[in-house]
């Protein structure tokens, strides 16, 4: 259960099924595509915060997936002790992660950006944060897998269209809807509001922004906190989709960075498109080659993009 793609539960290829040949293949393919699309929505929720922190602000928060796991455990506590619906729990803990983001960026600014220390020392800082979060989670919760309970978990809708059978689990559907709403909301916020434009301007030219009378540090701190606040809902979605244990965040590091880099740094809509591409790729590989190969997909995409088109699909920034 350690692989991210156990989510998909591909139908096993028994000999009896293989006799049905093409029909089964088509069914598998279409089911994999649908599942991949839904999975892509979930991936978008995981990586949208990182897209803001890394793509727009240049703070390489490699602890992001692990903080999402921490949020998943918060959801677990709220769900198991008070019986709160996981999505609602995700919304409740969002302000906590906003505050946490505010604190983390303040520390990061104080120690690294203000003194213009090497950017790579900041990476070591976030790596330490990743490690500490994981160890604390292990100390508090142990290494067991945790689950949440809600009505939409464990059931699925099935339909037969044109002689082909489809089945979509409700939990994937829920995650897809919530993730899409969150991503679209953030996308609009960053496209349409003054703050969003200012945050994108920080990415392009900090000096110009301060000449316009806007405090770039305030904008960056705010944007980082917004990026980190997405961890709340992303964590809730994660524990809805898969059983969560403290080290599971590491499996997603490759996924989220592959998505952000493929989408192009500084482009939130690009992140969305890239999340769907990766979701479908992971789903197809898990269906036809087995879920244990899924982590190799994101890594292959990451290396491929870095080697041939480092600006990503919709990127504007420079990568050198």
């Amino acid at each position, binding site marked *: 259960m350690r692989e991210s793609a156990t989510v998909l539960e591909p139908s096993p290829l028994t000999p009896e099924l293989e006799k049905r040949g093409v029909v089964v293949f088509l069914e598998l393919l279409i089911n994999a595509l649908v599942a991949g699309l839904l999975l892509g929505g979930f991936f978008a929720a995981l990586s949208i915060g990182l897209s803001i922190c890394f793509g727009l602000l240049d703070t390489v928060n490699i602890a992001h997936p692990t903080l999402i796991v921490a949020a998943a455990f918060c959801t677990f506590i709220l769900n198991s002790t008070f019986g709160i619906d996981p999505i609602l729990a995700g919304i409740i803990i969002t302000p906590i992660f906003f505050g946490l983001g505010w604190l983390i960026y303040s520390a990061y600014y104080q120690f690294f950006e203000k003194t213009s220390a090497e950017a790579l020392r900041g990476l070591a800082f976030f790596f330490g944060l990743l*490690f500490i979060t994981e160890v604390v989670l292990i*100390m508090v919760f142990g290494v067991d897998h945790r689950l949440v309970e809600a009505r939409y978990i464990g059931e699925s809708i099935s339909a037969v269209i044109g002689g082909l059978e489809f089945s979509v689990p409700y939990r994937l559907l829920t995650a897809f809807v919530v993730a899409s709403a969150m991503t679209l909301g953030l996308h609009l916020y960053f496209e349409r509001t003054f703050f969003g434009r200012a945050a994108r301007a920080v990415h392009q030219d900090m000096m110009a922004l301060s000449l316009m009378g806007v405090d770039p540090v305030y904008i960056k701190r705010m944007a980082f906190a917004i990026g980190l606040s997405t961890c709340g809902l992303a964590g809730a979605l994660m524990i809805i989709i898969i059983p969560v244990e403290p080290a599971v965040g590491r499996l997603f590091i490759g996924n989220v960075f592959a998505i952000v880099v493929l989408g192009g740094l500084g482009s939130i809509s690009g992140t969305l498109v890239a999340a769907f591409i990766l979701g479908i790729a992971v789903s197809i590989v898990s269906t036809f080659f087995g879920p244990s190969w899924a982590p190799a997909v994101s890594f292959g995409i990451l290396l491929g993009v870095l080697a041939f088109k480092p600006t990503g699909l919709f990127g504007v920034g420079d990568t050198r």
Partner: protein
Amino acid sequence: MRYKFEIGCILVLLAAYLFTYLEVNRFLYVAGFPILQFVMIATAWNILGGYGGYINFGTAGFLGVGSYTAVALIQWLGAGIVEQVIIAGVVAGFLGLSIGYFTLRLKGVYFAIATLALAIVLETFVNNWDFVGGAAGISFLPPRKPELLGYVFIDSKGGALFGNTKEYLFFIMAVLAVFSVWIARSIEKGKLGRGLNSIKDNEEAAECMGVPTLRLKLFATTISGSLMGMAGAVFPSFLTFIDPLTAFNLEFAVNSLAMPMIGGTFTWIGPVVGAVLLGTVQQWAIVTFSSELNLLILGVLLIFFVTVAPHGIVGWFMKKNK
């Protein structure tokens, strides 16, 4: 004196051999081996991370590749430890070269991210590779009488250099650790080290001055990865068991990063100080309290040194002397 450092190396090796010859408490070899391994890993990491300023999060990946190359060689050819170390070094070095080739032309963060994902992907491959035990791991017995060119190294009755396998492997690890420190120091004192330092300070300026930045970075990545692979190659024989969780443990990545940063990254002695200090404390802490608490302390120390004391212990002492 001109060869002060080289004489020091030989003295350390003699001391290590005497240590095995004296047949003290067995536990000391078991505790000493990881410390020497950490010295080697931290030194290897520092060649790229400390001198060149490029952070490698994939230590566990390189180490695991070394370990599993050794396992494959044992399974396939029944190769001895010396062959394992050499071939593991070549394989891990090639891995470093190819990762570097893909990512080192870009900003440093991309290299860091790629190496971070690398360990997980390699773990996936090993999990799917049944020949070396797959996810369940594999256990084996080290050869009772390892020999090289007709000379037998171990004889429990005496008459050979070593009394048992643990002592033999302890000494091999000591040789490898000293070897890597010697390589790191040679790089630091030579043209290569100055080139890498200029990359760390300002890569654009370095390139404009004619420093072949890409070639230097690739070289440093290859050497660093190769040494890590060698450190990993001895691991399965020492444990007589290896599984992907042990070989690709994230703790290696944290240690290899924390030790040079705590000791001081700008000189060869820094990682050695950090590794001996942290390694000893960890060996003691694992015995006395839980290993989770031990890891938590490690993480907190890493953040403390990165934020407040970026020049590490060695830097702190050097400032005092001035």
